[in-house]
C-alpha cells in the first residue's frame, strides 16, 4: 500500500507577487542554483507565508525567469512567488531584502496582474565593459559584426559543444568610451563599453556569445575578463533601442 502524506492538502495560494532583484559585486559569481537556495532560505527567515506544492517533497511555489549567467551582474532579474496569506508588497520587499546577503538585493515587489511575466521578458539590455580595449577598435569590430548576416558561435553545454547563430538575436549594439566620460578627466587606461540589446531566443544569446562573435568576425580579444551587467529586461520598444518596464501592466 503506497503511503500518502497524512493530514489535509497544503493551503492554496491566494496571491502571486513578482520580484525584481539585483545581483551585484562579488555575488555576481553566484549561479542560478546558488540564488535559488539563498532565496528559499531567505523566504523562511523572513517568515514569508509561502505556498507549497503537495506530496512528500513539498516545494515552495517559486517561478524563475531568464537567470543571468554566472559571473554576469544584473540590475534586472525576475522571480514570481505564491503565498497563502495576502502580503503587503513593500513590507515583503524590505523584509526579504534584509534577509538576503548584501549583493542580492530585492529592488521591487508588485502584486501579479494578468498574463505571464515570462512573456513580457522579450529582450535584455547588457552593459559590457572591456578594460584595456580601445574604443575605436571596439566600434570597428561591432560594425563588422552588425554587417554580417549570420555569425555561428560555439558554446560548451552539458551535452557537449553546440553551434548556433549569434547574429539574428542582436537588436542593437552601441559603443561608448569608458576611459573619458563626458566632463571627466580621462583615465590612463582605455576602456570600451558596449551596450547590447539582445532579443531572447532559443538558445539564448548571452554576452559571452556576443564576445565570441566579435572575436570571430573582427579578432577582438579582450586582454582581461570583461565586466558584464544586465541593465534591464522587458518588452522590446518600438524604436528597438531599449526595453520597457515589464511590471507596467501589473501596476496598471
Amino acid at each position: 500500500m503506497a503511503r500518502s502524506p497524512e493530514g489535509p492538502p497544503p493551503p492554496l495560494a491566494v496571491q502571486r507577487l513578482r520580484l525584481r532583484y539585483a545581483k551585484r559585486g562579488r555575488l555576481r559569481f553566484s549561479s542560478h542554483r546558488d540564488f535559488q537556495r539563498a532565496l528559499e532560505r531567505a523566504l523562511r527567515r523572513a517568515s514569508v507565508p509561502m505556498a507549497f506544492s503537495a506530496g512528500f517533497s513539498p516545494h515552495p511555489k517559486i517561478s524563475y525567469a531568464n537567470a543571468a549567467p554566472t559571473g554576469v551582474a544584473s540590475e534586472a532579474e525576475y522571480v514570481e512567488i505564491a503565498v497563502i496569506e495576502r502580503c503587503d508588497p513593500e513590507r515583503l520587499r524590505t523584509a526579504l531584502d534584509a534577509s538576503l546577503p548584501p549583493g542580492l538585493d530585492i529592488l521591487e515587489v508588485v502584486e501579479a496582474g494578468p498574463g505571464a511575466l515570462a512573456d513580457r521578458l522579450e529582450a535584455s539590455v547588457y552593459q559590457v565593459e572591456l578594460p584595456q580595449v580601445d574604443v575605436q577598435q571596439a566600434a570597428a569590430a561591432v560594425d563588422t559584426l552588425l554587417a554580417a548576416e549570420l555569425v555561428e558561435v560555439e558554446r560548451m553545454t552539458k551535452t557537449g559543444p553546440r553551434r548556433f547563430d549569434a547574429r539574428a538575436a542582436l537588436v542593437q549594439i552601441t559603443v561608448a568610451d569608458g576611459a573619458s566620460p563626458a566632463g571627466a578627466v580621462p583615465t590612463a587606461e582605455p576602456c570600451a563599453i558596449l551596450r547590447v540589446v539582445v532579443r531572447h531566443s532559443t538558445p539564448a544569446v548571452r554576452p559571452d556569445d556576443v564576445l565570441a562573435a566579435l572575436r570571430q568576425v573582427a579578432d577582438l580579444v579582450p586582454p582581461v575578463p570583461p565586466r558584464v551587467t544586465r541593465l534591464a529586461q522587458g518588452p522590446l520598444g518600438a524604436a528597438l533601442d531599449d526595453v520597457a518596464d515589464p511590471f507596467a501592466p501589473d501596476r496598471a
Partner: protein
Amino acid sequence: MRTEPSVESVFPQLEALLPLVHKPIQYVGGELNARSKDWAENPVRWALMYPDAYEVGLPNQGVQILYEVLNEADGVLAERTYSVWPDLEALMRAHGVPQFTVDGHRPVGSFDLLGVSFSTELGYTNLLTALDLAGIPLHATERDATHPVVVAGGHAAFNPEPIADFVDAAVLGDGEQAVLEISRLVGQWKVEGSPGGREELLLRLARSGAVYVPAFYDVSYLPDGRIQRVAPNRPGVPWRVGKHTVMDLDEWPYPKTPLVPLAETVHERMSVEIFRGCTRGCRFCQAGMITRPVRERSITGVGAMVEQGLAATGFEEVGLLSLSSADHSEIKDIAKGLADRYEGTNTGLSLPSTRVDAFNIDLANELSRGGRRSGLTFAPEGGSERMRRVINKMVTEEDLIRTVATAYGNGWRQVKLYFMCGLPTETDEDVLQIARLAAEVIRTGRSVSGRRDIRCTVSIGGFVPKPHTPFQWAAQLDHETTDARLLLLRDALRADREYGKAVGYRYHDGRPGIIEGLLSRGDRRVGAVIEQVWADGARFDGWSEHFSFDRWASAAERALVDQPVDLDWYTTRERGYTEVLPWDHLDSGLDKEWLWQDWQDALEQVEVEDCRWTPCFDCGVCPQLGTEIQVGPTGAQLLPLDVVRPNPLVQA
C-alpha cells in the same frame, strides 16, 4: 617587536581570475552569519582551514564551532580558508595571488596562527599546497617570527607524526577551550613584545600542556626500523601530551548561528550535536575511542539550539549529530518534541548514524511524520556473526532481520547496509555471508510488505586500522586481497537469481585505503613521502578522480629508499606488544594495557559491553583525564514554541 605584514585584501587580484575558474562563488565569501572583525583592534589572528574543497569544508562542524568561539573572544579574530581547486591554484601561481581567507580575503601568511582541521589523513597534501601558496615554508624548522604558527587539530591530529615536519603544533581532542588558551598565550607573548621569538612562543605553548610541539621531541629508531624512544628535548616539556575534553556541552552551544553558504555543499542542512563521545566499544572505530567519555547535551539545550539555528539560517533540514544518535538518553522525547514543534513548517529532521535496532524505526517514523521516506541506513560493519564479535559490533543476524522487517513493514522501501572488508581475522567466507544476509533482507522485506519493489543496497569499503584503537596493532589487509574479496562478493550477489536484482552493490577499491593506512599509522619518516608525492603533483587525495595510488607508491619507494621500512611495513605488518608506537606519547586517555587486552579479546571473539549501562571496564579515560560520563535523562520536555505571533508581512 614583530612587524605587522600587509593585510590588504587580495580580492581585486583574485576577482580578475574568478571568471576563468569553475564555481567561482566558493571563493568570494560573504556567507550569511560570516564574521569580519577589525584587524587592528584584534591582535590575535587565526586563519582556520579545512584542507578540502569549500563544498566539503564549509559544513564542517569543527571549523564552524571554533570560528564562532574565537570571534566571540575579545582581542581575537578568526577567518576561514579552504583548499583551492587546481584550476585556481595554477592561476594564483601565475599571477602571484597568495592563499587567502574567504572572509577578508587576507593573505593567510599574515595571520598569527593557521589552524588546520584534519578529519582525514588524505588532506595532508592539501596542507602543503596551502602553505606553499601562502608563502609559508613547508618545514616548521625554516619558519621565523613573521610566519604563522601552524596548528593541526581534528581526529587525525591524534597521530600527527607523519606531518610533524610541516606543523608547529597539534591540539588533541576538543578545541573549544584549547583555542582560547592558545589565543591567551599568543596574545600575552605579543603584548610582551614577542620575547625570544618563535622558539619562546612554542615553548610556552608546549609547557602549558595545551598543545603538542613535535619539534620538542626526538625520535630514535632501532636498526630494524621500529621506534626505540620518543623523548622531549627541552626542559619543562611534558613526556606525554593529553587530550582536551569539554565536559558540559550545554555551556558550549556552538555553532549558535551556523554559516549559510551560497554555493552548494555536501550537507545542505543545519547540524546540532546532541552528544559527544561513544562507549559502544566498536574496535575499529577511532572516533569512538578518542572522544570518550560520553557527554550529552540536554534536551532543552538541543531544543534551544535547533530553534535559534533555524531562525538564524532558514535551513530546511536539521540533522541531530553524534556518533550514534539513537543512544541519547532522551532521544525519544527529543524526536517527538521536535517533530511536534515543527509539524506543518516543512522542516525536515534527520538522525544520521543510527544503530541496528527496531527502536530506531520508531524514531525514524516520528521524524519523517508525513514527510518523505527515502531510505534507512544501518551499519552491521561485519558480514558474519563471528566477524561482528571480533569488532565488538553487537548486532545479531536476528536483530538485523527484525529491524529491516519493521522498516519494510512501516512503509520504507529502501534499506542501505554498510560493511567493511579486511577486518582482522576475516576470511572470504565472512564477506560472502553478506550476500546471504542481503538475500534474507529482501526475502523478509517482500514477505512483510507484500511487495516486490523493495530494495537493499550493500555498501562496502576496506578497513584501515587506526591509532588509539584496539586494532592499532593489526595487519592491514593488502589491497589485492581486499579487491579480490570485494569481487567475490559482487559475483555472489549477482549470482542470486531470486533476490540479486533487488540488491545494489557499491564498493570502494582497496588501494586508497592502503595510503590512508600509511598516513594513519605512520611516523615522522612518512613526512618525506608526503612531501615527495606533493611535489609529484598529489592534490585532493580524498577525491577518487584526483587520487593516484601509483603516484603514492612511487613516492614512498623513493622517499624511503635509505630506510629499513617501506609501504608494506607501515600497513600490512602486524605490530607486537612491546613495540613503541609513533603516538604512544600522545594521550587519548585510553590505557595501552586495556587496548591490548581488548585486542586480545577481539582475537578470542569476546565482546565488551557499554559502560553507560554496565559497570566501568577500565578503559582508563575517566581516571586518567579526570572526566566522567555526562548523560541524562534530565526529565525535561520540549514545550511548543509560540508560533502564533502576528506576521508583520501579512495584510490585516
